[in-house]
Each structure stands twice: as C-alpha cells, then as structure tokens.
C-alpha cells in the first residue's frame, strides 16, 4: 500500500559530487527544498547505490551457497526399536550377572581385615577341645584308602575317631579298612552300610548313628589332610561358636590342561573368597568335603538328604534356612588337596551333576524358609548361577557380534560392550589369583599358563554352558540317574559324586570303565 512519502522518495543527494543538499520530491505533497544547490547536476531518483553518472551499482560477488542443514539419522522402525531395547536390556542384565560374580569373587580382598578373617587364626586357642568323628565313605578305593586312613590316624589331635564306611558288597575295600583299623585300634573303626541302592548320603547317615564325637567331619577317601587341620578347626569352633566350619578344598593339578587350570582357579576363588561371602550372607551351599558339623545339629536335621544329587549343597541350604551359622576358613597350608576330573567329558558330567543338583535344591524349595527376603533372593540367584553364568558367557560375544554387523545407534553399540568390562576385570583378577596361587603353593606359573588362562575363558564358558543345558534337559526328563565318569588309573576323584537309584552302580568313582 503506497504511503504518502515525506518528500516522496528522497532522491539521492548529489553529495557524491559534492553538491550541497537538495532533495527532489517524487510524489505529490512535496516539500520545498530549501538548500541552495551549488551545482546543476540533476538529482537522480532511484535506489541508493545508483550512480548519478549511470554506473550500475556494484553487483555482489557470486557466493557459495551455505551447506545444507544436516539432519540427523532418520527414525527407526518399530522392529529395530524393539531390537535396540532388547539389546540394551540384555546388556544391562549381562553386566549385572558378570558384575555380581566379580564382586563376590573379590569378597575376601575387600579390606586387609577381611582377608585376615578368611584364614584360620594364627594363635592357637585354649578353649575346650571337642571330640571329632571323621566319616570317610569309601567304595572300591582299595588303593588309596589305607594310606588315607593312616594319615588321618596320624593327625595331631587327641580326641578323634575315624569311621571308615564301606558297602556290604565291597569286600576289597572292607578288607583294607579293617586292616587300617587293626593298625590304629583306638582311632579307626569300620562301619558297614547295608542300604540298597548305595550312595554317599546314605552311607553318611548310616555312620551318623554310630558317631560318638561332638563334631562330625566328612572327608573323602583319597584326600590329603594336613596334620594340624583338626586343631585349627577346633579353635575356629571355639572362637566363633559357629555350628558348622567349612575348611578349604583345593584342586592342585594346574598344569594338566587348559581347563584344569581354570578348574583349579575356580576352586581357589570359591573357597578363598566366594564361600566367605555366602557365610556372611547366611546362605551357603556347603562343600561335601572337609566340612565339620556339630553332631547334635546333624541329628536334629536328620542327616543328609538321600535323594539329592548335590546333597552337600542341600544340607547347606537347610542349615541356612534354619538360621545356623556357618564359618569358612581357608589357609593354603591347611587345605585338603585334590585333583580335577581326568578328562573334559568327566568334567562336563561332574558339572551336569552339580547343575542338576542345584536345580533340584531350587525346586525342593527349602530355601523359601530363609528368614529375610534378601536371603531368599540371594538363594534364588545363587542356585540359578551356574545357568546364568554359562549363558552370560555365551551371550556376550553374541551381542557384540550383533552390534558389529547390524546398524545400531552409537550409544546402543557402546552399551552392548559394557558387559565386557566386568568380564575383562574378572580375567585380570583371575590372572592375579593365578600368580598368588603359584606363590602360595610354590607352583611355577609359566607364560603358557597365563595364555591358557586368558584364551581359555570363552571355551570354558562353552563347556559350562553345555553342562548347564544337559542338566536342564535331564531334569526336565526326570532323569536323575548317576552318570558314570571314566577314570584311568588310580588317582583322585572329585569330591561330590553321588550315586542315586541305579542298582549296582558304583559309588564315588569307578576304576572299571562303563
């Protein structure tokens, strides 16, 4: 809308030529120009920038267009959003599982005081010395039983009785046991178990009826026991007034194979650190060896569960749910020394048995009687751990592979690598543990061992995952039969092997192959 311009368009002053002010009025209602022009150059109407001499206004240089606005990546479809969410959630869960495992693995080293507390006390106690009854169940252990009983009889403790439990159908072992009993009449007795079918908990329950000691200890037929073990255990009972003392068990054959090295370290961290956490948290899956329980307590609890594949764990859960206190003590000198299963297959079978046993305990539900909610969740978590750990180990590389090959936002990619953090830290801790093991037990750690440790991380997870899957399948099929493990030659066997249901299946380990 044209407006009434004041003096219309003010034309360009011919100041460019030094002419004094004169305004030309282009529209109606022009005002008179008062200035005196001193030049006759015509005033040019037009835009500023036009030259009275007609030179065109300088054109601006041609300019590069500014770069287009970069819009961020486009919206993802619902599928991919769901995929990202799943990836993020899975990564967080994996980190949680790996992280808690790491934290519990390091429990003993939380502070120097904690570390001291995991050992037996240095100063000998002066409290009352209880009478020990050591139960040594044996089946087809003619070669090692005699020596073991001799060593037990030679232990430096006054008030101890040793009950060697043999099956009524096992004359060889019975003969060895009787011979040992003859050699040490005041210490060694033989108890014959007539139950059918045979298994370890039944043997132990049979012997429990004949026990005369205040404290019952369970040992394996081929264990190497330290002479001072019992006095230290007695001191522990006196100091803490605990109901159960779990001593340390340590596999020793580090160099046999890559997986035996990992197995050894597993035991090391379990008995050195993790079990102490469980003892403190009042939920503990006990070991079946070098464990000492007050007799009256055992009798109140009616001994071991004859139906469970992991009867030691089951007993521990029952103890925890009743509120009894368990104390764990680990000293490199005083541990009970053992060896790993001889072959990878036997390891898998052993682990299958453990996993299945844990599942059975989980299903049995005694843990529901634990007093606090926190303990119940800890029970659920611990009993499911073998499965969680196995699958964690498998899923981490999988999620990383997915991230590398699929197109995901940067932060989702980075988040999916977070589970690697506790995993790598665990490997560093395992390396530290390996070196410490070497120092504690005077074993040489070679570069090969270190490499085996690091490179064997993932394969070992695969082994454990296979065992976990087998356990689930067997439990689902209702098959809780005993799996025979192959053995070659006379050497040590794993501590907790239980034989259930199948008639004439051999206990513990069998030197005959299936």
């Amino acid at each position, binding site marked *: 809308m044209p407006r*009434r*311009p*004041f003096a219309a*368009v*003010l034309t360009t*002053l011919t*100041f*460019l*030529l*030094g*002419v*004094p*002010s*004169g*305004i030309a009025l282009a529209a109606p209602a022009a*005002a*008179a*120009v*008062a*200035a005196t022009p*001193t030049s006759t150059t015509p005033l040019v109407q037009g*835009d*500023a920038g036009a030259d009275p001499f007609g030179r065109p206004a300088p054109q*601006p*240089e041609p*300019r*590069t267009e*500014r*770069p287009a606005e970069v819009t*961020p990546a486009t919206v993802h479809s619902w599928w991919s959003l769901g995929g990202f969410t799943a990836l993020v959630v899975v990564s967080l869960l994996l980190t949680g599982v790996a992280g808690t495992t790491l934290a519990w693995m*390091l429990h003993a*080293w939380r*502070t*120097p*005081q904690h*570390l*001291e*507390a995991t050992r037996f006390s240095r100063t000998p106690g002066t409290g009352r010395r209880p009478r020990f009854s050591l139960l040594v169940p044996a089946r087809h252990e003619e070669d090692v039983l005699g020596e073991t009983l001799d060593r037990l009889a030679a232990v430096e403790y006054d008030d101890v009785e040793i009950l060697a439990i043999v099956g009524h159908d096992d004359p060889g072992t019975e003969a060895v046991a009787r011979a040992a009993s003859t050699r040490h009449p005041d210490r060694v007795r033989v108890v014959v178990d007539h139950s059918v079918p045979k298994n370890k908990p039944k043997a132990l329950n049979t012997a429990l009826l004949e026990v005369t000691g205040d404290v019952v200890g369970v040992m394996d037929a081929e264990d190497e026991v330290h002479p001072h073990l019992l006095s230290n255990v007695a001191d522990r009972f006196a*100091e*803490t007034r605990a109901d159960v003392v779990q001593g340390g068990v340590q596999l020793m054959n580090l160099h046999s194979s890559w997986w035996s090295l990992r197995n050894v370290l597993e035991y090391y961290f379990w008995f050195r650190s993790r079990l102490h956490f469980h003892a403190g948290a*009042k939920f503990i899956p006990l070991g079946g060896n070098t464990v000492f329980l007050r007799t009256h307590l055992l009798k109140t609890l009616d001994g071991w569960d004859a139906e469970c594949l992991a009867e030691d764990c089951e007993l521990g859960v029952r103890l925890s749910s*009743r*509120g009894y*206190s368990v*104390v764990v003590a680990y000293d490199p000198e005083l541990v009970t020394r053992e060896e790993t299963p001889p072959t990878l297959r036997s390891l898998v079978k052993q682990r299958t048995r453990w996993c299945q046993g844990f599942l059975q305990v989980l299903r049995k539900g005694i843990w529901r*009687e634990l007093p606090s909610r926190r303990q119940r969740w800890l029970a659920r978590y611990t009993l499911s751990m073998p499965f969680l750990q196995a699958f964690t180990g498998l899923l981490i590389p999988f999620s990383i592979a997915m*991230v590398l090959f699929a197109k995901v936002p*940067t932060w989702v990619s*980075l988040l999916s*690598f977070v589970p690697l*953090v506790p995993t*790598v*830290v665990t*490997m*560093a*801790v395992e*390396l*530290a543990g390996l*070196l*410490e093991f070497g120092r504690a037990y005077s074993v040489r750690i070679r570069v090969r061992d270190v490499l085996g440790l690091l490179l064997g991380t993932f394969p070992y997870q695969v082994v454990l995952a296979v065992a976990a899957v087998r356990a689930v399948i067997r439990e689902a099929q209702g098959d809780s039969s005993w799996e025979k493990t192959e053995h070659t030659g006379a050497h040590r066997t794993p501590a907790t092997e239980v034989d259930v249901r199948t008639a004439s299946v051999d206990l513990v380990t069998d030197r005959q192959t299936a």
Partner: protein
Amino acid sequence: MATIDRTNSPTLAVVAEPRLRDRVDVRSLVVLGVLLVLTTALQLWGVARSPQRIDDEGTYVAQAWAVLNLGELTHYTYWYDHPPVGWLQLAGFFALTGVVEHAPNAVVAGRIAMVVVQAVSVVLLWVLTRRLEFSRWAAALAVVLFSVSPLALQYHRTVYLDNIATPWILATFVLLLNPRRRLVAYAAAGLTFAVAVLTKETTLLLLPAVAWVFWRATAGGSGIRRYALAVSGSVFVLAGAFYVLFAAVKGELVPGPDHTSLWEGIRYQLGGREASGLVWQEGTLGNRTLSIWLALDTVLPVLAVVLAPVGVFVRRVRPFAVGLLILLAMLLRPGYLPVPFVIALLPLVAIVTAGVAQSAVGMVRRKGSRLVTGILVAALAVGGAGTASAAAATWPTQLRGLTIAPLDAPVTDAQAWIAQNVPDDVRLLVDDSLWVDLVRAGRDRRDVVWYYKPDTDAAVTSGWQNYDWIVTSDSVRSDPTSFPTVQGALANSRTVAQFGEGDRRVEVRRIGATDDDPLAAARSQAGAALAANPRLDLDATATGLLQDGRVDPRLMTVLAGVAGRASFTVREFPAVPGEDAADGLRRTVVLDGPDPQAVRDALSAQRGAYLPDSVAVSGSQLTVQFPIS
C-alpha cells in the same frame, strides 16, 4: 523345625567393622567451610568481567551447548583433538542447572560451572591433605595457595578442560589414600583417573605420581596389592578402550577419505602442533606463555621450582614432588606448550609447599640437633616471610584486576553492538567466544562461523568472499597466515566498530569495504553547507562534526529535508559506542523542535537507504538513527 535365634550370631570379631578412624571433626568442617565460602566468593566476584573471554572458552561452551541443543558432539565436525568427556560433563551441568538461560552470556555460564568445579576441587584438596596427615593450618595453606593466587584464580576461572580434570585427579589421590584400604576404593580410583585422562589427556603425565601413591597405599604384603592392581588397572585401561571403541564404532579409528580419525587426532596432539620454542628464548610462543604466567604471579612458580626438589626428600609429599618435577621438566621441552598447562601444576605446588612447611615445623618441634633446628627455623622464617611479603606485594594488584577491572567489556560491547546493528541474515566469521550467544539470539548456525573452521573443515565454506562480516579478537589476529580465509577477510574489510584498545580490542569489520574513504571531502562540503542552513540550529560540536565530514550522508540528507519543514535545534549527534574508535560516521541525531510527530511520520515514510532504523519521540525531542551502512 526350630529356628535358632541368631540375632546375636557370632561373627568373627576380626571382621566386625571398625569405627571410622577419620570421624567427622567439627573443627575441620568449620575451617573447610570458611575456606570454601571465601574462595568461592573470590572466584565469583567479577567472574563475568575478567579475564576477557577467549576463543578456547567459547569452543568448549559451544561444544557443550551443541550436545544439548543440536544433538551433536561438537558444533563442527568432531576431529578427536580432545576426548569429549570434558565438555560432556559441562553439558551435564548445563542441563542440570539451566545456567545458560540465566547467565549474561554463554561463556559466563561455563565460568559458573568452573566455580562449582573449583569448589569441589577445594574440598577434595582439603580431604587429600588431611589424609596425608597435614595439620589443619597446613591444609588451609594449601587451599589458599591453590585458590587465591592470581595465577590460580585466573586460570581456574577460565573454562578449560584442565579445570574439569582437576577434581577427578584429586579424587583419584583421595581414593587411593582411603584409610581402610578398601579394594572398591582402588577400583574407583582407576575409574576416576581414567575420567581425568579422558577429560584432558595431558593428565596422563601424572601417571607416575598416581602409581607411586598406589604403590605406597597398597604396601603391606597382605595380597591386596595384586588384586587392587588387577582391578584398578583393568578398569583404567577399559575406560580408555571405550574411547577407542567409540571411534571404531563410528568408523573413525584410522585415517581415510571423508572422515576425521582418532589416529590423526592423536598424531596432531603429539607431533603436529607448532612448537612453542624454548621458554627462555625471547620471542617464542613458549616464552610468551611463561611471561603471562609470571606476570600474574611469581610466588607460585618460584615455590614450585624451589620446593619441588626439596619435596622429594620429604616422605609425606614425595610422590607429588616427583609429579611436579616431571611437569616442570615438560616445560623445558621445545615442543608445543599449551597455555593452560599451568593448571596441572597448581594443586601439586600447593601440596608440596604445605607439606614441606609442615615437615619443617614438625622437625623443629621435635628438637633434633641444634644445628639442623637452627637451619630449619631460619629457612622457615626466610621462606615464610619472603613468600608472605611477595604475595602481599604482588597479589592485590592482580586480584583487583581480576575482580573489578572490566576486562571483558570489549567483547560484551561488541556482542551488544552486533545484536543491534548487524542484520540477522548475514554471514559472520567470529571468535568462538561469541558463537553460542549469536546463535541463541536467532541467527542460523551456518551463518555464524568460527574463524578456525573455514580452512580446516571441509564441511564449512571457505573463501573470504562468502562472508559479510568478521569479528576479530586477539586470537583471530594472532595467527593470520594459517587461515587464508581470515587473512583475505582482514585484508578486504573495514572496521565499522571497535571496542577496547591494543591487543585486547575487538573489531567488527565489514568485508567488501575498504579502508580508503573517497567521499570524505564530499561529506565535509555537504556538512559545511548543512551547517550553514539557517533553519537548523547547531552548537559548536555539531557544527564541527558536520564540517569534518563525520556525519553520515543519509542523515545529512534527512536533516536537509527536515529543515525544509521548520526550524529545528540539533541537540547533538551522539556517537554509538565503538564506532568512533573505528572512525565511523555519526548516524544518530537528536532534534528539538515543533511538531516532532509530523517529522516522525514523514521520516517513517521514506524508502530505501533513507528509511531510518528508528525514530523515537519523547516530548519535543526526536531521535533519529540510521542503520549501519
């Protein structure tokens, strides 16, 4: 089944948690509280005024702002010169507090973040010195040296990544010295050190000091050291690995066409930068940096150089003295010396000085041999008196400059001038300290270009012809030859407004105009003629301005037209601040006369160049202003 009551269950007495040894001590808290209030107040006083905003500050603030508002890691292509953790923390602070909305400008918002960071650092320094078993006065001395020295105050105020890294490195030391020797504290120390290094990579130079403190803290043969090293070492390495992973996931790990790379960023920082030359050689960049430091404060540098070797013999502070020596040795290299390098030295100097003083006093108190005691007393007296008097003599002037002097006025004024006078749709080359404010004021982010980028970033248009204005500051002018676009812009532009003087001046220049002024004579003549106009009543100043040709031709034209209507008094031709210094023409006039409303209506009806920017009437006065030409 009976459940035995185990509420008093026997646990091992040894495991029972010991009471905290360093229980909360009221006196310590009071002293710390007082120190904290004083140092924070000192840092806040004048935070917006002094020192002048610099390019680096603007860059970090702009990057933090870009994270929050543009969803990108930086406002330009991220080229891995520094890991982003530093400005991510700054962005977190901005998001939490919203300080950018309320601060006078974006860099001040960043400086307020620095005040908070410094407060945290003060608390951590106190805790660290107390864990080193310093007495309260020694800890207070350390805090005072760390906060009140003008060198410290200026550099702590400035938005540098080194400042953000300082609390993390102090936290690392604090965690390593935790009294109960907790494994989780060592693990956390690995993490905090990693964050410090990812905030400012030069923190890695403190690794020997950190490792030494770690070694000392984990001594004892209890087996803790092995596991502490495993956990903290792996956490530290993993955190660093995540940065590499980040680059790898984005496909920017190794050099290639069309993208920046981590490799090149590292190479640039390690070798690609221009050497600063030896610090003691006149004229080198290093010498200039060192003289800036020494000009602010000589007390701390002298203390550093004198006491670092002494501190090596004092067991309490030995690792810190060694760390300090390593950093001082870095100063002697002829390679690149970053200006904020001094920030890493400050806490170490504070700790070493206070530690040496405390140890000396302790030795005197213990009254050993007369000779040694005598020497120590003399040294303490001389050193203490000398330091105190040097501080009393030199600090107040510098502190006054840092608290009261309006050193940032040139930039603030330039920013205000640009907001008022430079159109919104033109393309500007600016110093980064103005970037966020200009963009927040409504300009397109592609129109406001950091001067550093046209020649170094392929995504940014280069060539001075593509820009309309350039705002220069000391950083823009300091290195003309590296940036052809800037060089061309400077050569082909004319200052339209100038604020401040000397090196600190800020010039707003319009590109395309040149310095020569062919119309000066013409303006003089026109002005003289206008001054002779009987309808206009001018005073001597106004007449002088007109006759000198200092008045804008459009304004003269309009006045001539106004004079055609009636008689007016020209009150003055006020100067717009900054334009006079740039020899700008006066484009504002204040008139007094009858019927200003009609004049206003008439003026508002003009077209083209003769349309004034603003015509304001108040009473009988009329203020007319034309836009910058």
